[in-house]
């Protein structure tokens, strides 16, 4: 079992390294497509974490939804719009620099404090018994979703419906109106007018 534990830890470290590395890369990269690929790496490593945590269903859904759907859309949009690399621009809001320093200081202080507090906390967290857990299985999640969480589930479905309608409205092609006018001579003037999303 020690070997298995060690193996698990090793995998964890590898995944964590992948996640953090990809995350940093995502922020650092100025090419959006690289950033997107880095983010996919993060998602996949997160899926690995979920597997380690005994949540295969969530892991699968993570890949399907994030990697398979959302990021595909993002990549698609990046390719469609042929997004350029970010150009460095002079910083326009100078006050952000001290704000950032201040925020970072606070963040570090809080992190240190929280780590200290957790270390001092008498609460002991049980180890995950991922191998024998029934929690992450499809059946338990399905039962939970359709009993206790039925209302949130349905609300989510309505939210998605709204998102579909909204996305279609936002992205649909501009409607072209043909305005036909007749002057005194009976001559017709046709004017094409584009009805854009922002004109609606």
């Amino acid at each position, binding site marked *: 079992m020690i*070997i*298995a534990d060690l193996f698990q830890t090793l995998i964890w470290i590898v995944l964590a390294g992948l996640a953090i590395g990809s995350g940093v890369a995502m922020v650092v990269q100025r090419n959006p*497509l*690289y950033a997107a*690929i880095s983010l*996919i790496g993060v998602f*996949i490593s997160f*899926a690995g974490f979920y597997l380690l945590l005994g949540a*295969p*269903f969530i*892991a*699968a*859904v993570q*890949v*399907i939804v994030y*990697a*398979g*759907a959302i990021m*595909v*859309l993002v*990549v*698609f949009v990046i*390719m*469609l719009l042929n997004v350029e690399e970010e150009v460095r621009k002079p910083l326009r809001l100078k006050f952000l620099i001290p704000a950032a320093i201040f925020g970072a200081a606070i963040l570090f202080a809080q992190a240190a404090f929280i780590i200290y507090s957790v270390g001092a906390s008498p609460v002991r967290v049980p180890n995950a018994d991922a191998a024998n857990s029934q929690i992450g*299985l*499809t*059946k338990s999640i399905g039962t939970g979703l359709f009993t206790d969480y039925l209302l949130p589930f349905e609300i989510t479905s309505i939210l998605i419906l709204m998102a579909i309608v909204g996305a279609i409205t936002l992205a649909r092609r501009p409607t072209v109106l043909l305005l036909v006018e007749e002057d005194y001579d009976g001559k017709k003037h046709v004017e094409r007018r584009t009805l854009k999303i922002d004109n609606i």
Partner: protein
Amino acid sequence: MFDTNNPLLIAGAQFLGIFLAFNAVLVLTAYLSLVERRVLAVMQGRLGPNRVGWFGLLQPLADGIKFIFKEDIAPDKATKFIYILAPFIAIISALMTLIVYPFGPVVTLPFSETFFGAPVTFPMTVARMDVALLYVLAVTSVGVYAIALAGWSSNSKYSLMGGLRSAAQMISYELSLGLSLIGVILMSGTLDLFSIAEQQGGWFGMKWNIFFQPLGFFVYLISAIAETNRVPFDLPEAETELVAGFHTEYSAMKFALFFIAEYVNMTTVSMLAATLFLGGFQGPFVAEFPILGPFYFVAKVFFFLFLYIWLRGTLPRFRFDQLMNFGWKFLLPVALLNIILTATIAVFFYSR
């Protein structure tokens, strides 16, 4: 003597299974390409490759050697990293699904009682997962990146067009593909592919889901062909329009990876179809002679593979708008209808 629950032993066994499965499938795909060429040739009234080896049986080997030794050319303006990454994503995502397919029923290792003191039984699948079906969908969905990124990174108009088309097409048809499976899931009540295959063992091994889910099968079949970018949905690599689509700029082994990935995808999709709708390894006498299971399974897979080749030889290509209209306005509603029908019937007749 050996602790059968030793995780190292299990891991070793799984590695062995993965090795076997991968190699089997790779060999299968290699010869699938030969079969395709021969069958197409027959359909078109010509001979096909028959020079290398007996009946051309060594042709795939020759192809492989050619791929390996060809010069690997990359476009100068390509985005190198992604350009190289894309074929690997393709082949990885294609092969990764193999581990969850049930190749056969639960079997007992021959002579295991003699060696281990107790009969060692195991299902003929590499990894039996609770969420196997989702796993398949997840991994195949990652495959989109391979085509999209390949198209984008090549820095070529044809490639980009192919990549974009491919991405759009795969997103669209993945939807109806996933929905078509829900009928089966509703009937079986599990996502575990092995369990799904096991449940189809009644009726003398002929209680296949296709009899209960003809609509789902129909939708799945069409979406699967589209997912694998095969004729008549091969728009991403439409020769007549885009030279070779997303892999125009690829050559040598990188092209070979795409090529292999496509055939592996064909195979895995066929395996899924066989498992979900045609009973997988189930068939007459499987209960009595479990060893028959893999043969039944391979036979069913070959049936689907032949179907692919058949279609390629028969049907013309869709236009892109036809493709989209068909996917969104026909397949998706039909899949939804199938779900509703199945759910309704399930509520009335299967309510436990």
